[in-house]
């Protein structure tokens, strides 16, 4: 409890093991089946906030145009994060076609503090396992979203 604001700074880079990116695509392909959007959460330990160590697949409802997380699952997940001293660094979801941040994405993120990242994967994640064509947005100091360069901010390791 040493800092006032959660770790996460503007322009901070996150390191993502390739295996976690491949896992992300596999989950989205299986869950979405080329017909539905899907969300996963990239989490990591707060003692090393630049490192992604796990991919979480939330309980959610989805169709071809959007998704909604289960509230009961969120409560359990919130407690689990605290008990393990880990936090969400990036929310990731798939889109049917091109990747962008929709008004719904802007309005209803899971986290809305400075430096939080939101990644959108195109074509229901049916393409190659890469960030090509992906859209990355970041929460600014005033809580607004700005597009940032996915290639510069997410380092595949």
């Amino acid at each position, binding site marked *: 409890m040493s800092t006032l604001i959660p770790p996460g700074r503007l322009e901070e880079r996150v390191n993502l093991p390739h295996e976690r990116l491949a896992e992300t695509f596999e989950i989205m392909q299986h869950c979405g089946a080329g017909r539905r959007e899907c969300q996963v959460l990239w989490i990591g330990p707060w003692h090393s906030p630049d490192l992604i160590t796990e991919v979480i697949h939330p309980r959610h409802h989805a169709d071809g145009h959007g998704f909604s997380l289960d509230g009961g699952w*969120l409560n359990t997940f919130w407690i689990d994060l605290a008990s393990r001293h880990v936090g969400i660094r990036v929310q990731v979801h798939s889109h049917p076609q091109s990747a962008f941040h929709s008004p719904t994405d802007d309005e*209803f993120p899971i986290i809305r503090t400075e430096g939080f990242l939101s990644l959108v994967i195109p074509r229901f994640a049916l393409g190659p396992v890469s960030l090509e064509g992906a859209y990355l947005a970041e929460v600014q100091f005033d809580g607004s979203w700005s597009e940032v360069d996915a290639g510069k901010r997410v380092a595949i390791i």
Partner: protein
Amino acid sequence: MSTATTAADTLTLVIVYNGLERPVQANTHQTIQALLEHAMNAFGVHQNRHLMALWTDSGVELQLNQSIQDAGLVEGSRLLLRPSAVRGG
């Protein structure tokens, strides 16, 4: 009946947000709305604050117009600060 705040009226609650825990001082006569504002300030949540809510460990959403006392909160109670809805599209 006196409405003055006494030491016995104050308590420390623990707010959980994105895997982090922060202590927040509160008064038993404060509303949950006031507590929610303190909690969001502690974690730097500045936008869409109307979409945030406080939940108990057991998954009950606290009503904003309730007092902390009426909500049954006691010293050390742990509360979850999270959005009421998470969506995308």
